[in-house]
């Protein structure tokens, strides 16, 4: 929980405020600022020139006007998950609002909105309770006001569909807002005491609805960062150094570009924040002109010292680290692995690896920046505004509070836009030029400076008794760590003072199988770390950790001659630390066992298949132990005996993410994540060559296309438990399930991702 708490609960004491402002009703839930009291905050609401931002930092806030229309502000990025719809449904359900009168607004950055991040599949998980309480508090305010206006006892009043009813009288929310003079506050204790609807009384949460952002996205009308424009802007594209770190520009020769009509100049970028080392920016009248010029401007660089690093070098460094027992932070240290090893009758060892993978969000990263009124205005789609603002402040040498990021739709996030580095060169160029700069990275550059998924190496050693029962597992996982470079404050402490580690990069190592002797070490690959910027790629750590853990489980089942599902069930006893914790993991490993049994029943598991075909199984419990979504997948593959080409025919997956808030959106996330799993398993991947990623565009980097899409059979387990995350977890089990199916079809054990055989 530690990490999520740091991100979601910056303010520990929260207050709910409701007040009549400008003929409407403001309702917000958040922290009081500057030592002001609840009473002062409420009073400041009713002042004609109310500057609420000085006294209140709402984590959730919405307005209702005198027509009863509700605008719910969304501080999360919209990147395909229809997050605004899901969050607004939670508020509106408790509020008793009429859904037809609800709209959403994605807000720009402002310190008053508190910590802004969209990632980790956290949005619903971290906001569900806050949103529910905020909606419930709003409903109480309206009920109280209605009772006074109708002259009835409060206990007679009930709220639904934007109306309060008391006996045969009723009054609409619109009328209450128009007639009421409301100013109220609730303390955290009062909020905690508010009645929340039982699942059976919900009218919006868990019910089918259409996402609010879809119509615009079906007409070409949704506005993305790339679509933003300002009068007087110039177009720009960067010239990138040969290494991420340590490159210096010796000389820039733009004589050939000067012949291009519309070329303006090439700026050398000095970045006080040191995020950009050896960058230049080409400025032109149009984007195609900037591209044309960028192709002929000659930059002479002195490259940094990683200019020759290859994928093989990074793997070799990783394996050496994994084999050095002194390395790494202890993440799990249960029982005595060494003793189990010494007593073992047999052992089994395997090394699992994953190669470099790109985000390849379809909208290349971009930003439009203007300095005006002493402020820096950035127009760009971003997932983690609170991470990039300090970096921008140090690059621009101006206070964070003078920088505003205006949010747009994101043409794909997948973790790429958690790091807003693409705003920095645009902002520095705009500052230098004194005019608005619209910067777009061409695709190959977007890939080259992507914060890629790090190559990873994992070493597993199992000790077995005479019957091949597992008596212990030692696991070492080595990779570049996103959090180490980008957010070192979020690193966790290993056990027994073994040092710091990136929880995101080992998540899934601390799985839900009961093992009496189990040790997990998380190790940073320092060669990876200095060659590139490791990033968070959809499903992050479990994307490589579970590849190893689940594949190794399949190997151990095979070794024991046991069915891979039976073998897992024997370890999923939900005992001790695996019994789970309320509310987020109530039931523990028993829920993982339940989805596994469910998928066994729904798939032809154990049945006969034609030759060269096979079924494989794997499970997931991502994103973290503290927010598990329970998944189990069975994949059916066919392998061409001649070409060895692998095709996935069908995947069954059973998913338990607790309460499903927005069913169609949840299903879409599951579909997308599962196909991402197929794509990363079989279709896409690159490698480092001369210090940079080799495959930079779709001619050689080849994500899954329509013709290779397998049939998907997805089931959400009916549940009223606390909602967990969904954007990433359904990806986790896919690659190991496919690899197991390939083994079943061919007898070939695959240990490298992406998978290829023959």
């Amino acid at each position, binding site marked *: 929980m530690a990490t999520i708490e740091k991100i979601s609960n910056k303010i520990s004491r929260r207050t709910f405020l409701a007040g009549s402002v400008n003929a409407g009703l403001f309702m917000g839930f958040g922290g009081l600022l500057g030592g002001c009291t609840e009473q002062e905050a409420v009073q400041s609401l009713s002042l004609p020139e109310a500057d609420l931002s000085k006294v209140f930092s709402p984590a959730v806030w919405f307005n209702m006007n005198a027509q009863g229309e509700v605008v719910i502000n969304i501080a999360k990025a919209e990147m395909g998950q229809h997050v605004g719809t899901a969050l607004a449904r939670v508020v509106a359900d408790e509020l008793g609002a009429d859904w037809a009168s609800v709209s959403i607004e994605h807000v720009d950055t402002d310190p008053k909105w508190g910590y802004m991040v969209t990632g980790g599949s956290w949005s619903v998980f971290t906001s569900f309770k806050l949103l529910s309480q905020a909606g419930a508090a709003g409903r109480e305010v309206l009920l109280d006001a209605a009772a006074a206006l109708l002259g009835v006892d409060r206990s007679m009043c009930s709220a639904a569909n934007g109306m309060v009813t008391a006996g045969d009288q009723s009054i609409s929310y619109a009328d209450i807002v128009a007639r009421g003079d409301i100013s109220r506050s609730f303390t955290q204790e009062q909020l905690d005491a508010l009645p929340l609807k039982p699942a059976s009384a919900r009218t919006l949460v868990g019910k089918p609805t259409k996402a609010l*952002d879809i119509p615009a*996205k*079906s007409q070409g009308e949704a506005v993305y960062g790339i679509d933003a424009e300002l009068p007087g802007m110039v177009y720009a594209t960067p010239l990138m150094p040969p290494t991420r770190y340590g490159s210096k520009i010796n000389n820039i020769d733009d004589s050939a570009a000067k012949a291009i009509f519309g070329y303006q100049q090439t700026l050398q970028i000095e970045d006080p924040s040191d995020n950009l080392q050896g960058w230049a920016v080409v400025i032109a009248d149009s984007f195609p002109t900037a591209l044309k010029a960028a192709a002929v401007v000659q930059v002479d660089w002195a490259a940094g010292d990683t200019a020759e690093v290859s994928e093989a070098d990074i793997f070799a460094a990783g394996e050496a680290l994994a084999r050095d027992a002194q390395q790494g932070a202890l993440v799990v240290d249960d029982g005595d692995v060494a003793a189990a090893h010494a007593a073992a009758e047999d052992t089994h060892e395997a090394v699992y690896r994953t190669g470099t993978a790109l985000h390849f969000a379809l*909208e290349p990263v971009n930003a439009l920046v203007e300095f005006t009124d002493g402020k820096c205005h950035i127009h760009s789609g971003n997932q983690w505004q609170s991470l990039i603002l300090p970096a921008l402040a140090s690059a621009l040498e101006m206070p964070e509070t003078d920088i505003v990021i205006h949010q747009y739709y994101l043409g794909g996030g997948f973790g790429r836009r958690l790091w807003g580095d693409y705003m920095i060169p645009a902002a520095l160029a705009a500052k230098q030029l004194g005019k608005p700069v619209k910067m*777009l990275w061409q695709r190959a550059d977007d890939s080259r400076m992507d914060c890629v998924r790090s190559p990873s190496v994992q070493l597993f050693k199992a000790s077995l008794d005479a019957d091949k029962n597992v008596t212990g597992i030692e696991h070492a996982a080595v990779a570049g760590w996103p959090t180490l470079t980008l957010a070192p404050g979020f690193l966790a402490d290993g056990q027994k003072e073994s040092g710091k580690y990136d929880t995101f990069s080992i998540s899934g190592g601390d799985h839900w199988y009961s093992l009496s002797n189990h040790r997990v070490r998380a190790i940073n690959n320092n060669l990876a770390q200095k060659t590139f910027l490791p990033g968070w790629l959809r499903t992050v750590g479990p994307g490589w950790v579970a590849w190893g853990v689940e594949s190794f489980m399949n190997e151990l089942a095979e070794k024991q001659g046991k069915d891979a599902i039976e073998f897992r069930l024997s370890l999923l006893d939900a005992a001790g630390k695996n019994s789970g914790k309320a509310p987020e993991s109530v039931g523990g490993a028993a829920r993982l066992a339940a989805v596994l049994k469910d998928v066994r029943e729904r798939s032809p598991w154990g049945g006969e298949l034609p030759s060269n075909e096979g079924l494989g199984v794997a499970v997931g419990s991502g994103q973290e132990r503290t927010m598990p979504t329970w998944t189990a997948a069975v994949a059916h593959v066919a392998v061409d005996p001649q070409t060895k080409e692998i095709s996935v025919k069908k995947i069954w997956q059973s998913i338990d993410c607790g309460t499903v808030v927005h069913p169609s959106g949840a299903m879409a996330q599951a579909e997308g994540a599962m196909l991402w799993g197929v794509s990363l398993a079989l279709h896409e991947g690159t490698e480092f060559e001369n210090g940079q990623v080799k495959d930079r565009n*779709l001619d050689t980097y080849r*994500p899954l296309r329509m*013709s290779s899409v397998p049939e998907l059979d997805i089931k959400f387990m009916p549940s009223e438990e606390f909602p967990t995350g969904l954007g990433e977890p359904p990806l986790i089990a896919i690659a190991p399930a496919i690899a197991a199916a390939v083994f079943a079809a061919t007898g070939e054990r695959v240990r490298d991702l992406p998978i290829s055989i023959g």
Partner: protein
Amino acid sequence: MIKFKLNGKDVQSDSEGETPLLWVVRDELNYKGTKFGCGIAQCGACTVQIDGTPTRSCVIPVSAVADKDVTTIEGLNSPAGLALKQAWVSEQVPQCGYCQSGQLVSAEALLRSKSAPTDDDISRAMDGNLCRCMAYTRIRKAIKTAAQEV
């Protein structure tokens, strides 16, 4: 100066003839629905129709459309186009949405050539349109839904 029809209207471009049509449409004529993804005719985000044929506008010089009819998502209002836009909503197709203009423009040409496309027809016609969010299952389903409506 190059003259052509964009979504049924006469337009002209002052850009140099070799300028990719994509940037003329987006930045000069200000139709932003058409998107940039790869720049090498491999993702389909920039798909427009030239005289009814789906074409990757990122690699077509504007000079090549002189006197031709260019249709973008904004002008995709044939019966098939409207049915598709509606099916995109009823089947809840878009995720991030960035690829969807290109998907719709490709799908409309498919439906005009085949009123009841098979799965293979759909795969063939749509394989050049990458959906990074991988909304493929719903794209396929919505094309079939739209085909029944036309």
